[in-house]
């Protein structure tokens, strides 16, 4: 899903950016001779962004190499295979979805064909060079983050008109267009990085060198302050460790808070005039963690679900711990959302109403949905499927969106249209409070579901093992 989104977005940019920038230039919003010049100016950021996200996300296919080691292959062949595999990575195809349509547009707009082809080849080899650079650029955080800071600083100083690096780098990229032969320079860069990647990799080709799984030293933190929650503290402590020590859970946790910014998407004139959007924004911004983490309960415990089911663990305590986590995260998100006050009081009311609805009602709904429909085991150690697991996304989870997101909007309009806007917001919050009052009743129902689904859930979770 995520990949498709990026492909469409890049493709659209490739086709459209020329014309969009052209319009900006005509309106005087950007000062430049032509769109191509603007794009060339920003390419420096593109290149660094490319290297940056590769460094963070693109990993060597190490796991696939181990079984090849003791088969009768020459080492060089294994390395070539592994390096070849990185070339067919999504990271290398994605830029093509921008550069190919963009180049076509350039030619259609009357740019020199040989120049555009030379420029395009240059971009292709820069992309590939970045790919191989990434191979031997592992564990260089000490270099990576300062460079990142410098780039961010350059971007800011350009934005505020202090210093414009693109004035220097733009002509550099333009050079590839003006001199079609110049793609040889990135080609050479590509060859050099490939050469280094090959030699770096062949040295790492031992089980105790590059192929070793790095075990992080365990750190134990004192969570005894949670003991005040009584019996619940046992599970709370575990859930906090779950989030802190597992990549997948940690990412979900952080992503959850990025939802706070989601409301900014609704700020353009198209949406901000529709009040229902404020309700939507309120639900999303305050409930990011609730939806992304809570929606996958009980799968977070899937790898040791048998243990949980054979120990003396009442479902209520197990679930209440998750519930408290969601409530706490929602409260924090709501506090972070205070900045929406800047956009107007009604935005902030939307946030508050959404928060109360999330805490009172949605927190139970996601647990209910999880118990009934979520039976996909989660591999805590990888972030692979973190963006939309196709199996966890089905018609039933879509149906659950009705109580989670559609119902509050309906409630809002039922009261906002008959009485007034504030009544709409109050009605949503009141529903949330009702949900809170009947929480124990709702939990009784949820518990029954978990009990009924116990065997199916265990069977589904153990399938992968």
């Amino acid at each position, binding site marked *: 899903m995520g990949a498709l989104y990026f492909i469409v977005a890049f493709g659209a940019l490739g086709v459209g950016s020329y014309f969009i920038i052209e319009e900006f230039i005509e309106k005087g919003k950007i000062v430049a001779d032509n769109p191509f010049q603007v794009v060339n100016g920003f390419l420096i950021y593109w290149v660094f962004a490319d290297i940056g996200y590769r460094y963070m996300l693109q990993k060597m296919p190490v796991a696939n190499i181990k079984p090849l080691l003791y088969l009768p292959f020459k080492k060089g062949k294994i390395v070539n295979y592994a390096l070849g595999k990185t070339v067919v990575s999504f990271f290398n195809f994605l830029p093509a979805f921008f550069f190919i349509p963009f180049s076509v547009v350039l030619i259609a707009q009357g740019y020199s064909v040989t120049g555009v082809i030379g420029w395009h080849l240059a971009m292709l080899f820069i992309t590939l060079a970045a790919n191989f650079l990434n191979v031997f650029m592992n564990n260089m955080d000490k270099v990576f983050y300062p460079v990142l800071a410098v780039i961010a600083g350059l971007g800011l100083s350009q934005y505020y008109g202090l210093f414009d690096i693109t004035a220097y780098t733009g002509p550099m990229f333009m050079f590839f267009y003006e001199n079609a032969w110049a793609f040889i320079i990135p080609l050479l860069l590509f060859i050099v990085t490939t050469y280094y990647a090959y030699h770096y990799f062949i040295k790492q080709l031992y089980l105790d060198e590059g192929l070793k799984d790095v075990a*992080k030293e365990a750190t134990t933190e004192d969570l005894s302050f949670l003991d005040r929650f009584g019996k619940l503290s046992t599970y709370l402590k575990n859930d906090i460790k779950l989030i802190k*020590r597992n990549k997948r859970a940690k990412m979900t946790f952080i992503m959850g808070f990025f939802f706070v910014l989601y409301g900014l998407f609704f700020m353009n004139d198209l949406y901000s005039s529709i009040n229902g959007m404020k309700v939507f924004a309120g639900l999303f911004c305050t409930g990011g963690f609730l939806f992304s983490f809570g929606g996958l309960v009980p799968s977070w415990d899937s790898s*040791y679900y048998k243990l949980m089911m*054979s120990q*003396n663990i009442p479902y209520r305590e197990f679930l209440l711990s998750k519930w408290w986590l969601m409530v706490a995260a929602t409260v924090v998100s709501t506090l972070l959302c205070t900045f929406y006050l800047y956009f107007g009081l009604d935005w902030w009311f939307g946030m508050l109403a959404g928060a109360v609805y999330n805490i009172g009602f949605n927190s139970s709904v996601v647990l209910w949905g999880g118990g009934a429909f979520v039976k996909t085991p989660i591999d805590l150690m990888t972030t692979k499927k973190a963006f939309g697991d196709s199996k966890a996304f089905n018609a039933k989870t879509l149906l659950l969106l009705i109580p989670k997101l559609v119902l509050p909007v309906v409630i809002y309009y039922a009261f906002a249209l008959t009485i007034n806007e504030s009544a709409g917001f109050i009605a949503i919050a009141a529903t949330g409070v009702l949900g809170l009052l009947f929480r124990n009743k709702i939990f009784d129902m949820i518990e029954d579901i978990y009990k009924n689904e116990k065997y199916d859930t265990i069977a589904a979770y153990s399938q992968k093992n």
Partner: protein
Amino acid sequence: MFSLLLDLIQPSSGHIVSNDVRIDQSEDWKPFTSAFIDESFLIGYLTPEEYFYFIGELRGQNKADIDALIASYSDFFNGEAVGQKKYLRDLSKGNQKKVGIVAALIGKPQVVILDEPFANLDPSTQIRLKKIIKDLANDPEVTVLVSSHDLIHVTEVAQRVVLLEKGKVVKDIEKSSATFKELEDYFIGISEIHAPVATVLTEEE
């Protein structure tokens, strides 16, 4: 079959009664039963100590009880597994097993279920484990259920041996000095005909 004992799968027919508790209808068996079946009984992102404390809290033990228990099994751990600043998921299979077995002994359970406990352990740990199981079994209050494919371990450790073949009870014998021979003869017999999968289940009280 151990999964049935822990109510992790539903019986297609019949039911299990443990200490007068019908397992598929009540959860009252949980406080007096503990088990280590496989890695899915371990929580990978905890250190062994944290895991013991977690199980301990579930079974109503405090931190001091658990510390004492870890200390009393220090020779079983043999300087490995505990106190190493490692998460369970980073331990070797054998050390994971040691942790799982000891965790199954937390809170003085009356029924202890161990699936293939000797597999993946080094010889000296196997010997220590046999001693632990025998000591437990000498307590008249405690029943230990152990499954194994290894006849030597079985006959050494068990008081009662049940031989299952394809889910059917083939033999159910009180252990005596002749048991090993009897079992061995049985398996030699079937290995000459064909090679079925047979599990030996041992029980001691």
